[in-house]
């Protein structure tokens, strides 16, 4: 998913004009922040989603381990 997004942005950038004139670096940095911010929101959400999925599997495998240990000790 992240790779597709990266690819989409790359295509988008391919149509923008090349650097020709200098403007205050901070101005450029300020202007681009809303776009980067939107992109960051998606990435943070994806990361949260991934962590949740990994968390579910980890909890499952941990509880399975506990069950295994319990059954071993009981037997």
């Amino acid at each position, binding site marked *: 998913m992240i790779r597709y997004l990266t690819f989409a942005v790359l295509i988008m*950038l391919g149509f923008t004009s090349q*650097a*020709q004139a200098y*403007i205050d670096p*901070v101005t*450029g940095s300020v202007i681009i922040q*809303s776009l980067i911010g939107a992109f*960051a929101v998606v990435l943070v959400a994806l*990361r949260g989603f991934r962590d949740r999925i990994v968390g579910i599997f980890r909890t499952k495998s941990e509880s399975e381990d506990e069950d295994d240990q319990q059954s071993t000790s009981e037997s």
Partner: protein
Amino acid sequence: MNELLTRDPGSFRDPAGYVFLDQNRVIRAVTQTAWQEFREIYQSGIFEILARKGLMVDCRQIEASQEELSTFLGARGEQIVAVFEHPRIPFISYPYEWTFSQLKDAALTHLDLQLIAFEHGFVLSDATAYNIQFLSGRPIHIDCMSLRRYSEGQVWEGYNQFCRQFLLPLLIEAWSGCAFQPMLRGSLEGISFSDALAILPRFQLFTSPSALMHVYLHGKAINTKSASATGLQSATKLRAGSYKAILKQLRDFISGLKSRKRPVSFWNDYAFSNSYSESMRRTKLSFVKQWAASCKPKMLLDIGGNTGDYSLAAVDGGADSCVILDSDLDSVDIAYLRFKNSGTQIFPLLMNFLDPTPDMGWRQCERKGIESRARADGVIALALIHHLVISGNVPLRDAVHWIMGMAPKGIIEFVPKQDPMVTGLLSTREDIYTDYTEEMFREAVTARGRIVLEHSIEENGRLLAAYETL
């Protein structure tokens, strides 16, 4: 109150307040223009929250009469209306003296501080790496006046600065294997986007979404046409969620960076590949420990200290704190990771004394050279002198007097020509070092002081000499 307090020559940029220093104190003086906002921030309790988390230095208001306040004057002639005190940082350091791990921890400290401040409705007005210092081995933000109230829709003003002074140097080392320190030393503003884009590998730049955003897209925006800029003016508001997401996303990205590409140096293995045996090493450790126990230095410099074995011996012996100054990146990084959570007051920095950090910045007063910052009462220079004399062609007498000029007490190790380490250095050059003898070494020491304790290591002919200056 401030008879001896003088304004730090590096404190002039922000008219909101200025820093005044004397031997022991750090005073922050707030001007009329910033007072109302700063008082509200101070009273909100955010400084205590950040200080408790170890992210910002303590900031405590001190009572001062009108008469006392009138003796302070801002860099632009402003009147001072309130003064605050901070703890003094024992040894000021700069990002070009830090290793990858140190800069990375400093970057994460900045972002952690921003994230917590943001939760409480505050932001930092800038993102200069020079506002981070190391206290007890951990990075901490020292400029409480950078904290401002967050207003809905505002952009991160320090974003460009953060990338240039933290993110780009880290990426250049992590992905290209280039040491960032010479580049940062070459430009106090940080590494430019155009340089970073030329250095960083294209594949990683275009396949990492984080790099694509913060480096490629950001760099492209900085160099874009002004016409496009005008067209995008309406897009200069940043939603609170986006502001926070940029900080969080950068934190995730930076915490995963590792310095793997830079070639490993010879020196990080030095502790195992040097010319003395385990018993000689123990003798040397005990000599250092015994010396430290006898003179108990408050601030010790360990010049050429490698990964810090002898610094640790000195601290165990009774030295209060120790700064390791070594020119090898790997050794300094190992020492930093070794001591940062150890509770010992040992702090390593990157420093090549044949090419030391000079005075830099505005009027060459803004960022100080190493010798004016290195206020020490003890120095150890073990297995160093042959590098200065033979690798650096510094006259022996000059090298000895320079070390003795760093502190009134110390230990210098003389490594003779028959030692395998010196033989190795001489194998590729003509032996023009006629002054490099133990006799001349003793003469040089006694010209400026006296040898109070000495130990000859019979196995390799080295001499450990503890001196005191006259």
